[in-house]
């Protein structure tokens, strides 16, 4: 969602300013020109308030300041602020220009300036433009000197790894950010790390841990008045409620999230993320009119975000969810249309899984192909370290197959049932059970024979080989338990 809150926002955007703030906001240009430190403070205030007009005003004044002040120290601060302002305005070309100037200043200063914040900006630009590998490369070059930078690096690393489909790595990174934030009492970073960890735990099927992280994130964000991350926390909590089948609680969370959205400086994609979760709630509520309406809203949101950030991962996520809504409502042709002409090259891993699920359902006529594609999706989800995502998708694929190929639906539901039971995910296993029941009895394997000798010792003589052909192992091996580095 939004970049991690590095500083608490200045309360509600409609809150009246204090006397000091008001005087700074109304200071004359002549006064500010004599006091560049005050001017910088004013720009930071505008950034914190964060309305579009504030950001545009701050950018214009920043350009003035850059033209008037040549001192390297002040210039470094101005360019850093310029990067943040450009990112808030989704002006990636401007942000890139500031990054290049900062890098040149760093190179010319023989290392007087810490390059880590610049590399974090570069990683943010890469991530927001859907280049997750490049973001990871940028982050790998950092050497954070300050704890807040270390926390930011960890959190952006988590987001990049998750986007590339390494959920375990993402969780490890967000937990590293959480530990740093805890150690140095960085409330904003802590709320953000916890929100990320909560999301990744859900992918792994750890609802209790996920909720624990998110509840703490909500508490911390409230204590610290860290408003930027609050809508993300609340919508993820709504997702937990949804997973656990508490639709009314999910709806209430979404209302809270809407209020939180209104009380903070907004990024262009904030309401898009809210709409994504809202659409999932409509789907789970089996409210097909609302789901179709949500699909249209999502397409609109995708168009809106695309105007300024066409490569942001939320754009394709919106299209994928819109297609899922159409599919769920039975409008498979509409689902196909929603997937067409989308640039999937910038999509994150989960979005690609969702897209492939919809494609499998709406475009497959052959049950063998359907089964093969379903298997591929499930294996990708498992290999990415998201077993719960795999089980949920298997259930969805079973439900969608049920109208056409009941035997295949029963196979998929049976897999869902067994997998969910083996991990204790009762809600999904109960949902899959009725479809799985259509499978009939299990395919009987050849029995061996038991022989008991005169002392009562039983020996099993195994049946001839051939019950199961030898199978290859496509997945990489599990780590050596004795290799501390691999298992830590």
């Amino acid at each position, binding site marked *: 969602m939004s970049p991690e809150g590095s500083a608490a926002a200045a309360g509600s955007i409609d809150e009246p300013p204090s006397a000091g703030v008001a005087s700074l906001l109304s200071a004359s240009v002549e006064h500010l020109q004599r006091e560049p430190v005050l001017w910088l403070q004013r720009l930071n205030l505008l950034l914190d308030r964060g309305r579009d007009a504030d950001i545009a005003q701050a950018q214009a004044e920043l350009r003035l300041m850059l033209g008037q002040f040549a001192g390297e120290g002040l210039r470094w601060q101005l360019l850093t602020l310029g990067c943040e302002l450009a990112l808030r305005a989704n002006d990636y070309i401007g942000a890139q220009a500031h990054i290049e100037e900062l890098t040149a200043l760093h190179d010319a200063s023989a290392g007087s300036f810490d390059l880590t914040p610049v590399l974090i900006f570069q990683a943010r630009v890469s991530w927001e433009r859907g280049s997750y590998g490049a973001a990871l490369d940028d982050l790998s070059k950092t050497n954070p000197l300050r704890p807040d930078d270390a926390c930011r690096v960890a959190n952006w690393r988590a987001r990049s790894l998750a986007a590339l489909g390494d*959920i*375990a790595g993402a969780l*490890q990174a967000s937990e590293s950010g959480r530990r740093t934030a805890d150690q140095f009492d960085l409330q904003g970073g802590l709320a953000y790390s916890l929100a990320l960890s909560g999301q990744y*735990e859900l992918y*792994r*099927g*750890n*609802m*209790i*841990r996920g909720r624990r992280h998110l509840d703490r994130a909500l508490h911390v964000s409230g204590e610290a008045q860290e408003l930027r991350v609050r809508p993300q926390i609340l919508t993820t909590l709504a997702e937990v409620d949804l997973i656990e089948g508490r639709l009314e609680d999910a709806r209430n969370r979404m209302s809270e999230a809407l209020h939180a959205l209104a009380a903070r400086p907004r990024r262009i994609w904030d309401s898009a993320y809210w709409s994504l979760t809202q659409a999932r709630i409509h789907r789970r509520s089996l409210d097909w009119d609302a789901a179709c309406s949500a699909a249209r809203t999502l397409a609109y949101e995708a168009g809106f975000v695309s105007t300024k950030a066409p490569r942001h991962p939320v754009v394709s996520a919106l299209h994928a969810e819109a297609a899922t809504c159409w599919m769920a409502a039975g409008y498979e042709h509409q689902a196909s249309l929603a997937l067409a002409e989308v640039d999937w090259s910038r999509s994150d891993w989960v979005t690609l899984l969702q897209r492939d699920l919809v494609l499998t359902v709406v475009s497959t006529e052959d049950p063998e192909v359907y089964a093969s594609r379903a298997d591929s999706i499930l294996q990708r989800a*498992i*290999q990415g*370290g*998201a*077993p719960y995502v*795999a*089980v949920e998708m298997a259930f969805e694929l079973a439900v969608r197959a049920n109208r056409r190929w009941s035997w295949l639906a029963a196979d998929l539901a*049976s*897999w869902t049932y*067994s*997998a969910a*039971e*083996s*991990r*204790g995910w009762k809600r999904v296993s109960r949902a899959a059970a009725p479809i799985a029941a259509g499978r009939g009895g*299990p*395919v*009987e*394997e*050849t*029995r*061996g024979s*038991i022989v008991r000798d005169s002392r009562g*010792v*039983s*020996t*099993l003589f*195994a*049946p001839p*080989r051939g*019950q*199961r052909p*030898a*199978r290859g*192992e*496509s*997945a*990489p*091996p*599990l*780590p*050596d*338990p*004795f*290799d501390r580095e691999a*298992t830590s």
Partner: protein
Amino acid sequence: VIDPNLWFPPLDRLYAARGAVDQKRVLFQGDVFDDVPCYRYPDGGKEDLVAPRGGRGKIMVLGHPCEISSGEKGDVSPWRLVCPVAEDRARRIPLDGEGHWYAFPLPDLVEREDVWYADFRFLSTVHSENLVLAKRTASLSEVGWIAVQRRLAHFLTRVAIHWLDLADAGVALHPDAGAA
């Protein structure tokens, strides 16, 4: 009724006991202990092939009940076949058992929602005195025991033994047999 084709039973039927297992319960195949030495060779490079790598940690007892029980062959030989139990931090163990054939998952072993696994690739032996009953942290149910036997047999033989064959062969052996 357990589907005989399943590798892993439902979680709520996997364990007989977890946490502080009753010390009066007999030592049995599939028991998990904490703080037991477990090693593999060599430690690292090719220079020293006898330097071990390992330490104390979680292990699963793999010897057949007849081999480890007191009053039987367990009294004759004090050596117990074990394998390490490691945490699946990356959550990559297949949910359906198709793949990673050397692994038997142990969900919720220590805390709820964690996933550990017995790793059959690293079988080793320890003296029975290392298996301190006060440090036993889990015992498998009869269903769980059969699942472990089936997985281990498949790992060593590539034969998927029929569930009911194992149930028949081990009838009345499990500590909880007939308890219901």
